[in-house]
């Protein structure tokens, strides 16, 4: 079992529905977000290209946050989902420093928080909230080890990339390009 997500940059319109769905589902404090929209404009006017990405924790296979956590609060759940056990987290900030994607933040209650791929929903066989609500259906979530899963199929058919692969973190959020 290896959970992963793929986001189609050709279909994403940057509406932020995924951001709001996540904030509602996970009771994210006001002013914070676990996922966010990035727009990259590239080129020379009038030949401009735009790429829109819904970004979040990459649930890396070689997670620097899990490695540097002094208490083991940051850990891998089944299927490679990286989560933080709140009452083991001391709020030292090492994992925040270690993440090349800056995907973590310090929750006002003290512990470090981030995207969990909606682990509580996944355990019930549901999709993460962001995937569920996407109006353009540009997000795919599933098991990479299952060759018949939607995500395995789409990654087989389409070209994709991950963010900063050179950081050596082996991210598991893919962007279809």
């Amino acid at each position: 079992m290896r959970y992963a997500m793929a986001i189609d940059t050709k279909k994403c319109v940057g509406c932020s529905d995924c951001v709001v769905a996540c904030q509602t589902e996970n009771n994210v404090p006001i002013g914070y977000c676990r996922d966010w929209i990035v727009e990259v404009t590239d080129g020379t006017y009038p030949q401009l290209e735009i790429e829109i990405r819904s970004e979040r924790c990459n649930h890396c296979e070689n997670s620097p946050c899990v490695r540097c956590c002094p208490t083991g609060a940051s850990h891998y759940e089944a299927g490679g989902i990286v989560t933080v056990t709140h009452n083991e987290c001391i709020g030292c900030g090492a994992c925040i420093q270690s993440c090349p994607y800056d995907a973590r933040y310090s929750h006002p209650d003290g512990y470090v928080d981030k995207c969990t791929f909606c682990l509580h929903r996944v355990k019930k066989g549901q999709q993460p909230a962001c995937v569920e609500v996407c109006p353009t259906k540009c997000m795919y979530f599933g098991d990479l080890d299952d060759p018949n899963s939607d995500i395995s199929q789409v990654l087989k058919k389409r070209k994709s990339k991950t963010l900063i692969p050179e950081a050596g973190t082996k991210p598991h959020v893919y962007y279809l390009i």
Partner: protein
Amino acid sequence: MREEIITSGRLNPNIDPHLEIWHWHIPLYLFLGGLAAGILFFASLYVVLGKENQFRGAVRRAPVIVPILLIVGLAALFLDLKHKMYFWQLYTTIKLQSPMSWGAWTLMAITPISFIWVAIHIKEFLPKWEWKWLIFKELELFFVKNKIYLAWVTLFLSVILGIYTGILFSAFNARPLWNTSILGPLFLTSGLSAGAAVIILFSKRKGERVNFAKIDIMLIGIELFLIVHMFMGFLASTEVQIEAANLFLGGQYTAPFWIFVVIIGMIVPAVLEFLELKKFHIPHVIPVVLVLFGSLMLRFVFAYAGQLSRWLY
């Protein structure tokens, strides 16, 4: 002109627009920890070398401030924690891959040792000191008898403490300015240099002060070499590390780094210590204060500049 504009909708406090999750607590602690390591290193080294009587300032006098340094440093670390009531979780596990974990355990061991060290040398400051309870007398006797073993353990732990303060930063691949293995040796050398400077202040014997002035000049030389070496490494590396180095080579931390750390904190005190060796009359407190200032600034500049350096994507 071809341009790439990245617009992010994320605005998490202390994360955006740039990382600011560690403030003054961490560099202050790294300075105090490095200084404590430096003092304990020389104190234990001269016991191991059997030169305790020649270097009383190093072995018996200077370590008196180490427990204070460590307690203040630990207090700073505690203040930095955002989930304070769970700090004890640090001591429920040993994670070898996490420098912060073995740093926490090293502190757990070296802090009581620093108290023991001061206790067995208390007569240096209070010649008429008598322990009120028998147990303390017996403990003192035990540690005095086994001082050589205590010194070996302290020597080992002080090196770990000194080098860990740098490795803590260098283990973060996400911050290109910190991600250099030079940082461990550089912070260790800086801590030793600060330790040697404090010993000069505590020493009563001119010969000992001269010895530590020589050691300090040598350590500052090593630090300068490591700094040059670090920039060579950065500039021959990837784009993110070249950009990180540029924070000190024309970027916004250029003046604080070169003026406060390198010139005022290293070159000026080294020159003053050299002139002192050449019989010029210079109050030895001046180079000592400058070395300590430089050592503190090194940590502050690296802590803040490092959080500005990042991968771009």
